[in-house]
């Protein structure tokens, strides 16, 4: 119970505006966890697998990953594939956050093992609602874990 607030949420999002909006809404929804923001897919993979610039650093594995699909260097699908294909990270729940509402892409994400898919609607209220629901969901997960 005393540990859960030190758990990290990894937010992989290349648009700093979106990242900030997501963070603000998570905070507003009552999430107090540390949020680590990364802006490319490569950085996300390096961070999770402790490679590249993150080599040797003592990283706490995040307990949740929020992943955008449209990312530079490695796109969201590739990151998702890597996460779900690696023994070390495959248990971490992944929430896909993207502007795409194309059913093909959504299905592809679920096939690759994403746990939740949230479209970033342009309607800001809806967007906040999605994020808040996500926050609520995270609280439940957090409670269930402890």
């Amino acid at each position, binding site marked *: 119970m005393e540990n859960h607030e030190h758990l990290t949420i990894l937010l992989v999002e290349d648009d700093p*505006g*979106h990242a900030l909006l997501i963070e*603000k809404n998570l905070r507003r929804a009552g999430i107090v966890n540390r949020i680590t923001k990364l802006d490319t897919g490569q950085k996300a993979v390096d961070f999770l697998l402790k490679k590249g610039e993150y080599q040797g650093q003592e990283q706490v594995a995040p307990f949740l990953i929020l992943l955008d699909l449209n990312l530079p260097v490695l796109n969201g699908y590739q990151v998702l594939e890597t996460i779900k294909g690696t023994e070390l990270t495959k248990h971490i729940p992944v929430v896909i956050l993207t502007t795409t509402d194309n059913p093909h892409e959504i299905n592809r994400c679920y096939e690759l093992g994403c746990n939740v898919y949230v479209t*970033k609607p*342009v309607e800001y*209220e809806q*967007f*906040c609602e999605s994020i808040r629901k996500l926050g609520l969901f995270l609280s439940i997960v957090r409670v269930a874990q402890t």
Partner: protein
Amino acid sequence: MPSLSANIKNPTSAIQRLTLLAILASLLIGAVPSLGYFLAAYYRELGAIEAEAKGDSFYVSALASENPRLWQYQQIRLQDILDRRIRKDIKEFRSVLALDGKVIAESRDSLEPPLMQQTYPVLDAGRSVGMVAIKRSVRPILLKTALVALLSVSLGVVIFYLIRIMPIRSVQKAEEQSRRYAKDLEVTNADLRAFIFGIAHDLRAPLVNLKGFSSELRTDLAEIMPLLLRSLAALSAEERLRVATVLDQAVPEALGYIDSSTGKLDALVNAILSLSRIDFRALNPELVDTEALVQGALRNLALTIKEKNISVTMGPLPAVFADRLVMEQSIANLLDNACKYLEPGRPGVISITAESGKDETTFYFMDNGRGIAQDDLQKVFEIFRRAGIQDTPGEGMGLAFVKALVRRQGGKIWCESSPGEGSTFCLSIPANDGREFKGNS
């Protein structure tokens, strides 16, 4: 994809006629000279033999006149006459025959069949007492005829090539070229569609920010508002008015414009995305009951129809072989427009009729609404364009959407209208697939 030749009316029969013409011409060119040569050479030869026979017969006749009883036994002299030849190189079989056909004398070379023969009577005081017969082989003529035939047949083949194969080659070449152009065009179109789709999609990310942060600003403003109001007390009346103007008017106005503009931008992006998706969705042609679709669309418009007191008539509509969704959305859209753009103050009359042609079925959606000006007839089908008085809500997507749907289906949509009297939207769907479908089932 329809090829170029498919557009030429009945290309198979044109090719067949051309082939027939080419065969006739080449046969004529191949056969006539050889036949002509053969006949000419044959009769010339016959003439020559006859002249020879006549010459021999002259001498034999002289012999016969000299000695009418015994001339037949003058073997040596007869043989001498027959052996006397001007052209030693031509092989011949010359004989002197009695009236009963018995051979009296002969001079024979070996001749190869087939043979030709000419006779001439031996006369004694004007009375025929026997005959001279000369045979020659036809073979040299035949050989020469074969040579002529060979030449003329080659000429015929060349003519056939010129008439039949060359034009078809060039048609095929042109067709191949147009196919290539069509393919290029398709690729370009696909690229363009992907490009538009990509742009529309990429526009969404900044839109999320615009909307999101304008909302954040609103939230922030609401948060500091009580503090500001409290500090207003410290300001002069003039300053207070300035702050109040900014807070009450300028800022909400700015945020309002940002919101409405991003809203519009969002609607456009969504419209472009849904228009692009038409091309991505696979068509699923089936036999569609259009009467049921029209009735369904009218049921959805029932409230409007009742409110505006519109009278709707529907003629018998044939089923068409098409994608159900395409037909459903097109019909719903056209009927919705017909109800929307009626002339205020005039009882609305809408009729839906159809005409089955050989190649297509055309549906007519006729109204007595406000009509569309001649200059605007094309514009109404353009994306985000709306014609006439703008008093009815709509994003100007409907007809562009319908046009894209119908074109995807291989059909056409157009509009005929007289302003103030009404418009007729015509929707034609190709019928050929339908016939095949009915034939198969």
